[in-house]
């Protein structure tokens, strides 16, 4: 049985209970760094079990966006390349046992293709449509990111943020919304 979360719990506790009191009172930098280290370990403890699901969520998002953008680009070489990239994303998502690295690599590739189009698309009208699609679709991703990092305690408006499980349960589902949002 994997005991990572239990281990992180113990390490966080010993840093707070044993290491913390040993730091000199006149060393606020060391105290600050210890507090931040504990804060991150506690965050990691509640997220580590979801790392693979997170990667799949991201890949699903980028695959959906690439499919949407390929439609805006039409039957152009860029559009066909984008459609191919989206299909590649779908293949990884439906491949049983796809590794975390494979999922992340494919996601990174899709992000790179999408970024290139936003940056380089020569037709102003098409580029404007792609920009709108990216911004509209990004609501799904930024909401997820806020949810993912919520345990870090920096979000001023936590009541706006849905539980991370509500996002991760969607991973693997196709986006059917026209706006991609």
């Amino acid at each position: 049985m994997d005991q990572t979360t239990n281990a992180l719990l113990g390490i966080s506790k010993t840093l707070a209970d044993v290491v913390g009191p040993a730091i000199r009172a006149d060393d606020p930098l060391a105290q600050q760094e210890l507090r931040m280290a504990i804060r991150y370990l506690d965050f990691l403890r509640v997220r580590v079990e979801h790392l693979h699901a997170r990667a799949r969520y991201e890949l699903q998002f980028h695959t959906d966006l690439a499919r949407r953008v390929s439609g805006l680009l039409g039957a152009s070489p860029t559009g066909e390349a984008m459609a191919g990239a989206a299909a590649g994303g779908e293949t990884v998502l439906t491949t049983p046992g796809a590794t975390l690295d494979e999922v992340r690599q494919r996601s990174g590739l899709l992000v790179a293709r999408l970024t290139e189009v936003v940056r380089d698309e020569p037709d102003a009208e098409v580029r404007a449509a792609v920009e709108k699609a990216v911004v509209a679709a990004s609501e799904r991703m930024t909401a997820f990111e806020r949810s993912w990092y919520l345990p870090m305690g920096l979000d001023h408006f936590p009541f706006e943020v849905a539980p991370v499980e509500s996002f991760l349960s969607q991973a693997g589902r196709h986006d059917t919304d026209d706006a991609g949002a």
Partner: protein
Amino acid sequence: MTAPDFSFLDAPPASFAEEMRRRFPTERETDELLVRKLQRRREDRDPYVPSTIEQMSSCLGRFFHDHLEGPFELSEIRWLAGGASKLQVAFELTWQRDGAARRDRMVVRMDPAESHNATSREREAELLRAFEGVLPVPTVYFVDVAGTWFPEPALIYSFAEGASKPRDTRSGAVSGLGTQFGPALRAQLAPQFVEHLAAIHRYDVRPGSFATMEPPAVGTTQAARWQLNRARRVWEEDRAEDSPLMEVATNWLERNLPVLDRVSVVHGDYRSGNFLFDEDTGRITVWLDWERGHVGDRHRDLAWTTQAMFGYPKEDGDGYYVCGLLADDEFYARYQELSGLTVDPDRLRWYTVLNAYQVLVTTLGSVYRVVRLGKNHQEALMVVLKAEAAICADRLRRMLVEVV
């Protein structure tokens, strides 16, 4: 097929640095700082050795040996926290000045080997000297411009008394972000907060006023261009990933560069956490962290100060207090009254988008590179700040929905 690999940015070739200079021209000193940053990544491959308090003590000793004529004594040398980007050591110096013996509490403020915010101690000193007597600022004693006596460039100034947040709050624990001051302190601090910003922006900038900063041309987009190019360049130099959303923001910012109507001194990081105050009297005792200061468009400061990440939610849940101090409509009204300067919504919107973009550059790009290179003293703080990228990306997206 594999995703793009940005690990070459750990030690980018000289040709990359030249490409950055060509694609993103910016003000002279900023250009030099960014060139130096990449040069060091390329050439300084020695393992990082953290600065110790003993090393800093030794550097201080050598520095004062070379800069003071009479005898001196160093004591009470200790690290300071606060400030997410610089190493700070407090100490007491017993020395002689103008024939009189004295004992002063001072701070040496030094760059880390790799910072998420490459800035100039010389510029910071110049700005502090300009505002001495105008605002509560530390007295600058010495500057080691090139890091001759210290491991990196360093500034020595007076130690300032005061607190960055109330004693009884748990808010503002990360670099002063989101501080809850409470009604009584808000009423005392808010007027000073606005008054001081107005004083900074009213400062009479003339050609040659500053050695480290050139005024951008009024009636042109140069001020905005310099700031945008700086942010874009840092993103290209530090990032670990692509981002379509960042690219959309870049396109919009490029298409809508605002024209400068008046040259102002811009503090660059005017917010709670960067001023100290006396909790008993409610007086602001000092303004710190001028490292992002420049001369340019006042709207850069206004948009920076009013960011949600520095605010604190109102009790009624309807938005937030600017820097935890006052409602934004009250902030702008008082600012215009005190400064005599206008707030242009279009320019404010442009700089609001730019600032969100810049914070993302830092939290998504620079923080990653700094932690990866392992040449900083606050990596744990850096990784926690990464969480801010999620909030800021959402804010940037909301802004882009309105303008794209």
